[in-house]
C-alpha cells in the first residue's frame, strides 16, 4: 500500500500540516518498536491532537481500506506497534494531557499519550498516585500501557493496568466514538473496556482513559537479601506469600545479572551470591515493622545470607538501582541478548529457572535472569554472539524452548510484554485451534475489516493474508541492545 499525493492532502486537511509525517526519514523512525528485528515501514505517520481527529482519521482510513497501527512511546518489546502491513502509524505523542483529576473520588481522565510517571507526578500534590509502574514508566505512555495491559514490579500487590482502568473513550473500526465504563466502577452489561485493555490496539483506538488513583502509601520498607542458591530465593518468595504477606514487590536477580550490574555500577552487590532478592513493602507505617520481621524470618528459613534494610529514600534508591539497571547492564556487557517474558505458577519458579539454564547450556549459551518473582513472571535474557548466525539461531531455539517449558509448567508465554509479532507463532502452542478461532471471532466483531493493527497477536488471523512487512534474518537480533535507556534501562 502506498498513499497517493491526494491521500496525503486529505490527511493534512484532517490533521493539519504538522500532524502528518511522510518523508522517508520521518517514517523510518516508526518502522519498529523496541523489538528492533521486526520492522515495517509505515506509508505515513499521523500525530492527532484530539479524540475527534483520531475519529476522523480512522473513519478516513476505514473508507479507504488502509491499516492503522496505534503507537505510544514505542517501548514495546513484542513488535506490537510495528506497522507490519504498512499503512498509517497513529502516534499518540501529542495527546499527552491530564484532562481532569477528581482528588476526592480518586480518579483522573487522561489522554493516551501521557507518560505513566508524569501522571503520578501530576497527581502527587493531592497525595495520590497511579499504581501500575512498568519499568518503562519514565517513557511509556498510558495508552501503550492499556494496549499491553502493562505490569511492573509493584503489580504483585496492586494488580496490573486492567485493575486501575475505570473506563475508556475509544474509536471503533469505523470511526464511531464510544465511551465504555467511566468514573463509576461499573458499566451495565458485559464489560467491553476490559477486553480492549490488553488487546494491543487491535480492537479499538483508545483516545481517553479514566484511571483509578490510590492514596500514596504512608511508608515503604525495602529489603535486600542474598542467597547462595537461586532456588532458595524462589522458595523464600513462596514462603512470604504463604505467611499471608503480599509485599508491594518481590524481584530476583540471578548471579549472571549481578555480575553484569556490578561490572558496570559497583553497587557492592555480592558477586558470589546465586541470587539477590529485593522485597519492598508499603502501607501504614505501624504495620511495616512487624512485616519486616516476618519477611526476614521467611528469608532466613531459606538460607538468606544477609539482610539489608534501606533506612531512607537514598538507600532505597540504591537498592533499586541494581534491579532497574539490569537491562542496561546486559546491553552494555553482552554481545547480543534476547529478552523473554514467560510466566509460571510461583511455586514452579525454582524448577523453571533450572530449566532455563539447562535449555541454554545444551546449546552452549548462557542466560541471565531478572524477574518479578512474586508473580512468577520470568525475564530470561538469552545471551548469544551477535556476529555468529549459528549462535543467534540457537538463541531463538532456546527462547522457544523456554516458552514451551513455561506452558508445560502451567504458565503462559507473556506476562506483560504482549504477543505482538514476536510471540505470534507461540500462540499455536499455548492455545488450541478452537481457542484461537474463538478469539478471532471476537476480533472480527470489533474490526470486521481487519484494519486495526492488522496481523498482530493471532497467528494467520483475519483475512488470512500473510504478513508483508520486511522480515529480517536472526542476524538482526544483535540490535536488541540497551540504547536510550542508559543506567535506568527502562524496558523491563
Amino acid at each position: 500500500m502506498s498513499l497517493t499525493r491526494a491521500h496525503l492532502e486529505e490527511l493534512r486537511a484532517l490533521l493539519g500540516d504538522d500532524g502528518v509525517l511522510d518523508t522517508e526519514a520521518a517514517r523510518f523512525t516508526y518502522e519498529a518498536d523496541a523489538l528492533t528485528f521486526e520492522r515495517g515501514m509505515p506509508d505515513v505517520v499521523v500525530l492527532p491532537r484530539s479524540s475527534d481527529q483520531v475519529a476522523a482519521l480512522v473513519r478516513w482510513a476505514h473508507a479507504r481500506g488502509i491499516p492503522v497501527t496505534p503507537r505510544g512511546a514505542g517501548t514495546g518489546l513484542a513488535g506490537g506497534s510495528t506497522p507490519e502491513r504498512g499503512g498509517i502509524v497513529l502516534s499518540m505523542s501529542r495527546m499527552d494531557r491530564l484532562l481532569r483529576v477528581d482528588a476526592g473520588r480518586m480518579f483522573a481522565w487522561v489522554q493516551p499519550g501521557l507518560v505513566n510517571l508524569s501522571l503520578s507526578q501530576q497527581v502527587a500534590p493531592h497525595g495520590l498516585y497511579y499504581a501500575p509502574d512498568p519499568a518503562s514508566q519514565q517513557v511509556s505512555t498510558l495508552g501503550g500501557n492499556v494496549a499491553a495491559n502493562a505490569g511492573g514490579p509493584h503489580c504483585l500487590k496492586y494488580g496490573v493496568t486492567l485493575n486501575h482502568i475505570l473506563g475508556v473513550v475509544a474509536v471503533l473500526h469505523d470511526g464511531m466514538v464510544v465511551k465504555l465504563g467511566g468514573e463509576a466502577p461499573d458499566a451495565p452489561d458485559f464489560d467491553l473496556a476490559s477486553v480492549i485493555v490488553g488487546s494491543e490496539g487491535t480492537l479499538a483506538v483508545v483516545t481517553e482513559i479514566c484511571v483509578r488513583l490510590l492514596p500514596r502509601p504512608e511508608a515503604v520498607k525495602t529489603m535486600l537479601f542474598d542467597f547462595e542458591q537461586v532456588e532458595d530465593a524462589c522458595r523464600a518468595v513462596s514462603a512470604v506469600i504463604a505467611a499471608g504477606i503480599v509485599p508491594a514487590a518481590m524481584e530476583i536477580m540471578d548471579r549472571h545479572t549481578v555480575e553484569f550490574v556490578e561490572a558496570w555500577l559497583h553497587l557492592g552487590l555480592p558477586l558470589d551470591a546465586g541470587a539477590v532478592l529485593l522485597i519492598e513493602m508499603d502501607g501504614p507505617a505501624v504495620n511495616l515493622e512487624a512485616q519486616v520481621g516476618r519477611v526476614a524470618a521467611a528469608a532466613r528459613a531459606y538460607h538468606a545470607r544477609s539482610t539489608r534494610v534501606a533506612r531512607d529514600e537514598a538507600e532505597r534508591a540504591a537498592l533499586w538501582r541494581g534491579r532497574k539497571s539490569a537491562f542496561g547492564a546486559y546491553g552494555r556487557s553482552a554481545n547480543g541478548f534476547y529478552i523473554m517474558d514467560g510466566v509460571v505458577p510461583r511455586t514452579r519458579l525454582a524448577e523453571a529457572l533450572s530449566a532455563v539454564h539447562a535449555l541454554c547450556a545444551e546449546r552452549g549459551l548462557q542466560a541471565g535472569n531478572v524477574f518479578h518473582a512474586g508473580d512468577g513472571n520470568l525475564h530470561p535474557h538469552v545471551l548469544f554472539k551477535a556476529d555468529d548466525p549459528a549462535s543467534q539461531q540457537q538463541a531463538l531455539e532456546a527462547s522457544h524452548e523456554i516458552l514451551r517449558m513455561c506452558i508445560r509448567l502451567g504458565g503462559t508465554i507473556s506476562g506483560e510484554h504482549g504477543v505482538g509479532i514476536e510471540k505470534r507463532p507461540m500462540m499455536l502452542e499455548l492455545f488450541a485451534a478452537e481457542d484461537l478461532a474463538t478469539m478471532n471471532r471476537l476480533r472480527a466483531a470489533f474490526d470486521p475489516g481487519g484494519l486495526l493493527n492488522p496481523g498482530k497477536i493471532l497467528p494467520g488471523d483475519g483475512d488470512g493474508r500473510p504478513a508483508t512487512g520486511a522480515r529480517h534474518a536472526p542476524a538482526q537480533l544483535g540490535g536488541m541492545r540497551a540504547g536510550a535507556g542508559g543506567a535506568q534501562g527502562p524496558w523491563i
Partner: protein
Amino acid sequence: MNPSPALGLDTARAVDPARFRLGGTAPRAALRPATRGEVAEAVRAAARDGLAIVPWGGGVALAHEPAPARYDVALDLSALDRVIEYEAEDMTLTAECGASIAALRRLLAARGQEAPLEGALAERATLGGVLASNASGPRRLRFGSPRDRILGARVVLADGTIARTGGKVVKNVAGYALHRLLCGSRGGLAVMIEASLKLVPAPACRAALVFGATAAEIADHDRWAPIPRLEPAVLTVVGRAAAAALGLPPMPGDFTVIVGLEDDAPWLDRQVSATAQALGAAAARLDGETAEALWQKLADLEEQDGPRLSFATAHNTPAGLAPLSGHAAAARLVFHAPAGRLHVFPEARDAQALAGLLAEKEFALIESRGIESLEPPIAPQAAVHQLRSRIRAALDPEHRLALGGRWERGEP
C-alpha cells in the same frame, strides 16, 4: 420428565423443568450435565435442533430475569462443582462454575485465604453465576469486580465448541480476554464451565463499626470526606427498614452506616480511631467472624423482595445519597459507597421518577428488576449497542443462548 430425546444426553441427566422458570415460564426441558463434555454435548444437540438455551447456576440473579422470547432448555450447571486446582502458595484457584461461593469460601478459609468474589445468598450463588451476573458485595473496592479477579476460563460456545482463554497464572497478556468480556454477560454469549481466579490472603483482623445517621448527617459531605482515604474494606449505608434484617440494635436516625475494616491489627486500630474522629463513637462494633458474617448479610440485602433499581456511581461516600433524603425508597436502600453501587427498592409506580432523579445526580442505572415499563434514563449509545450485537452474532450466530436476546439489533 423426559427431555427431548434429540438432546442427546442420557435421560438420567434430565431434571424437572418447573424449577427453572424465568418470569413464570418453564422451559420444555431441563438438563443437569455432570461433566464439561456433557455440557458441550447438550449444547451441540440443542444447536442442531434449533433450541434456545439458558445456562443456570444457583438461580440467584435469574430469579428476577424476565422470560426470554424463546426458552426451550435450562442447562443446570450445578453438578459441575469440582475444584480443579488449588495451590495456596500460588494464590490461584481453578474451579468448575457450578461450585458455590460459600463452598469455595470454606475451602480457602482453611488455608487463610479468601475468594475475592461476593454476592447475595452465597450458599446458593455459584462461581459461574457471580461472574455471569457481575455480582459484587460490600467489599467491592478491596476485591475489584469479577473482571478484575478472573484469570481465565473454559467456555462452551453456542455451537458446542469448548474454548479456553486466559490461563491460571496471575499475569498473562497472551490473547484476547474473552473471560473478562463474559463477566456480566448473563450466559447470553457463552456457557462458562470453568474459571481461574486470583485469590487474596484473609486479613489478620476484621472489624465492623456501626453508626446511626440522620438524613442531615448523611448529606454532610465534609463529615465523610476523610473516610475513603482510610481505605476501608466496607462503607455501606442501609435504610432503616433494610437494617432491621441485619440483627443489629436499633440506631438513631433513618440510616445505618457500616464502616468495615480489614487489616493487620496496628493499622486497624489506627483506622478505628480515625473513623471515630470523623464520625464520633460507633454505636456498635463487631469483630472477626461476626464482622465477616455481617458482610454477607449486607450482600444479602440486595435480594429484598419487590422491584429493584441498581445504579453505579462515582460517589464514594454516603453524601452521594443526599438527593434521596426524605424519599420513601430511602428506607430500603443499600449503598456500598466506595465501590459506587446503589440498590433501591421503590414502589413500581415511583421507579421512573426515582431513576430520573438519580440520573441527574450521577447515578447510572445499570439494572432494573420487576419494572417492565422502565425506560433507561440514559439510552446506551447506539454504537455500543451495535458492537454488543456484533459480538453476540460472532459468538452465537444462530442466537441459541436465549438471554443474549437483549443485544439483538434494533434494540434499544
